[in-house]
């Protein structure tokens, strides 16, 4: 594996992409989980397929089409969620299927052989090109900069938006950034795990980090490293067993998450039982003394 990293450009690209995607996952995943926007993120990811199809049909780089559709879907959901008459959840469901249907339509309209869409649907970290790395690096840098720049305001907005409003903090700006950063982040992740698996990569590292850390900063930073561990492990498994990388990353991370959450709840139960047992013993001893 080490030799492969030094000898093959595609392995070097894959590693850089894994690091960039992990930074995005740590930030966007935490924001989406804490603002309960994971379903919306799924809708945005699937809506982007329409733009990818449009790119194939009109002959421009499909990922730019995906970005356009993702940002458009996010803006639409953001506006609708402020209008009580239509539920954002309903619109998310509609855009989810509409984007996929549009993508298939555009691809069907594309002249010549039908392109292979597997890498967009399930991701392919091993086929990432230099230009894709540049694309990912630019957007990851933007997300990281915005996050660091407004770090304390992210905390107040994500934790207690009503309090921030009562303090007259302009939450509109932060809200707009959330609905811009999530689609951009999703497009970065699509090259790694694909449209269908993106929300799992957004949710799992943060969910694991929350099992162990109680501070916001620690959750974000550890999510980045957990995601890096999953992406690189998935890459290794994919390299040796020849299974699509996105599938390896998600299957491996889901198993780890399930094992850790089960182990943690079992441990907490054991600690609770031990505490109860100790308290009963103390009470019995007191009764005996009386």
């Amino acid at each position: 594996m080490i030799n492969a990293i030094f000898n093959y450009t595609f392995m070097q690209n894959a590693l850089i992409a894994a690091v960039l995607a992990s930074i995005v996952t740590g930030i966007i995943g935490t924001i989406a989980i804490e603002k309960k926007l994971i379903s919306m993120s799924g809708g945005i990811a699937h809506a982007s397929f329409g733009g990818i199809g449009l790119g194939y049909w009109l002959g421009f780089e499909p990922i730019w089409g995906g970005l356009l559709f993702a940002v458009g879907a996010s803006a639409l959901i953001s506006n609708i969620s402020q209008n009580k008459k239509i539920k954002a959840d309903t619109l998310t469901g509609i855009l989810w299927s509409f984007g996929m249907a549009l993508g298939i339509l555009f691809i069907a309209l594309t002249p010549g052989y039908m392109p292979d869409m597997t890498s967009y649907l399930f991701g392919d970290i091993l086929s990432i090109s230099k230009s894709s790395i540049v694309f990912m690096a630019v957007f990851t840098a933007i997300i990281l900069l915005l996050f660091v720049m407004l770090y304390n305001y992210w905390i107040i907005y994500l934790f207690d938006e009503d309090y921030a409003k009562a303090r007259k903090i302009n939450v509109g700006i932060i809200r707009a950034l959330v609905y811009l950063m999530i689609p951009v982040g999703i497009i970065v992740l699509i090259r790694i795990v694909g449209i269908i698996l993106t929300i799992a990569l957004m949710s799992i590292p943060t969910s694991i980090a929350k099992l162990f850390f109680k501070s916001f900063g620690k959750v974000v930073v550890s999510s980045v490293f957990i995601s890096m561990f999953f992406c690189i492990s998935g890459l290794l498994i994919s390299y040796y067993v020849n299974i699509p990388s996105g599938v390896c990353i998600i299957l491996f991370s889901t198993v780890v998450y399930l094992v850790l959450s089960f182990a943690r709840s079992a441990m907490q139960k054991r600690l609770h039982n031990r505490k109860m047992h100790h308290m009963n013993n103390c009470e019995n001893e007191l009764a005996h003394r009386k």
Partner: protein
Amino acid sequence: MTENNVKFNDVRYCYGEVCAIHNADFEIKRGSLTIFVGPNGGGKSTLIKLLSGFLKPDKGSVDVENNGAIGYVAQGFGFDDSFPITVKEIVLTGTLDKKILPFKKYSKEQHKKAEEAIEKVGLKGFEKRGVSQLSGGQLKRVVIARALASDAEILVLDEPDSNLDIEAVKDLYQLLKDLKDSKTIIVASHNIDFILDISDTAVYINKTARFFENPQELKEKLKEGMII
């Protein structure tokens, strides 16, 4: 607004065709503890929301000192208690500037303010505890500490005693009594037995607002069933 830092000027607010509150016209003195009491659906929460700036009056105005910035403590907590945040981090957010300043780090002074506020509400030693590791009463104290750490002169609490046991309610009101010299405190509550004894003024809210300079007068009237 020198002596008074909150003024309701003939305020009316309606949800569609149903008016929740009308003719609300009173002033609240600086450094006082005022209680909003009244039946369910009488308009207490609407008045609190108007005061906090979440709602805009259909008629009249609500004047709040310091550009309307208040320390607001919501009825529920308004946040998810699984959020990864410590007591100190929550209280520090109270010291944040209203104006969004990029790359803003908390200064030593802001840390000191937060630590003082934590000590004031009796949670010294809890700074590194996660929000999920606190009881309901402790959480109320944390959000009060956050409001104390802010530059807001006015502290508004909507039903702060909901979901608390009697001991926690007594502790909470004792804390509010201790704090009333440093802030103007406004509390919406059903718990008239405890709070009317420690408050300076009271407002009875039932579609309209009636101001009582002496809370004991309201207590007597409520006991005698003279106002419903």
